[in-house]
């Protein structure tokens, strides 16, 4: 079944640790996105990719980095986590067959102590 997956769903980690949030999709989409959402607030785009080896920063400045080595995989990395990174991170994809519609994964709730 075509879907978009994120792991882990929940992560509690100490300050200074390096973390990678995984995002994979089996939708056959070429475009992928990372959004950040704080409770009760709107989603903000932090990274996007239009294809393999293509990555761009979004509208909200973020200390995280992303890579796109395979079409279906778009991981997000924080080299040194801080409490200010505590948030919900949502991955999305779009592409041929979806029109302009972005489809979202279930999200990763990150808490940095």
């Amino acid at each position, binding site marked *: 079944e075509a879907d978009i997956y994120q792991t882990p769903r929940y992560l509690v980690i100490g300050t200074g640790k390096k973390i990678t949030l995984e995002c994979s999709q089996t939708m056959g989409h070429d475009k992928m996105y990372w959004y950040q959402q704080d409770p009760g*607030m709107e*989603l903000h*785009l932090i990274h996007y990719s239009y294809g393999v080896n293509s990555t761009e920063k979004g509208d909200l400045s973020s200390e995280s980095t992303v890579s796109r080595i395979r079409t279906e995989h778009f991981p997000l990395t924080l080299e040194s986590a801080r409490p200010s990174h505590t948030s919900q991170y949502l991955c999305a994809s*779009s592409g041929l067959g979806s029109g302009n*519609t*972005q489809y979202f994964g*279930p*999200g990763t709730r990150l808490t940095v102590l």
Partner: protein
Amino acid sequence: EDQVTQSPEALRLQEGESSSLNCSYTVSGLRGLFWYRQDPGKGPEFLFTLYSAGEEKEKERLKATLTKKESFLHITAPKPEDSATYLCAVQIYNTDKLIFGTGTRLQVFP
């Protein structure tokens, strides 16, 4: 500046009590307007895309409409399972980026 404003912030309805959610937008050029449903702790679930003023789309108890300045999400005879946060987003012409509103938190009581 491109902007999306949703109202009300929160809405409590009795089961069967119809109502509407509003999404007002100011953008340089609209490529599309999207409605999503988001349950607590989950990612947004796609509902509708509207592309031009006058367009309407329906799905079960939900109906979305679009004018040049705003969109409405009408909920007819809601049920408790319709309780969720409803998000509106606009896509600007010539980009794929979505600009989201803060959402309307809907609670439907039996």
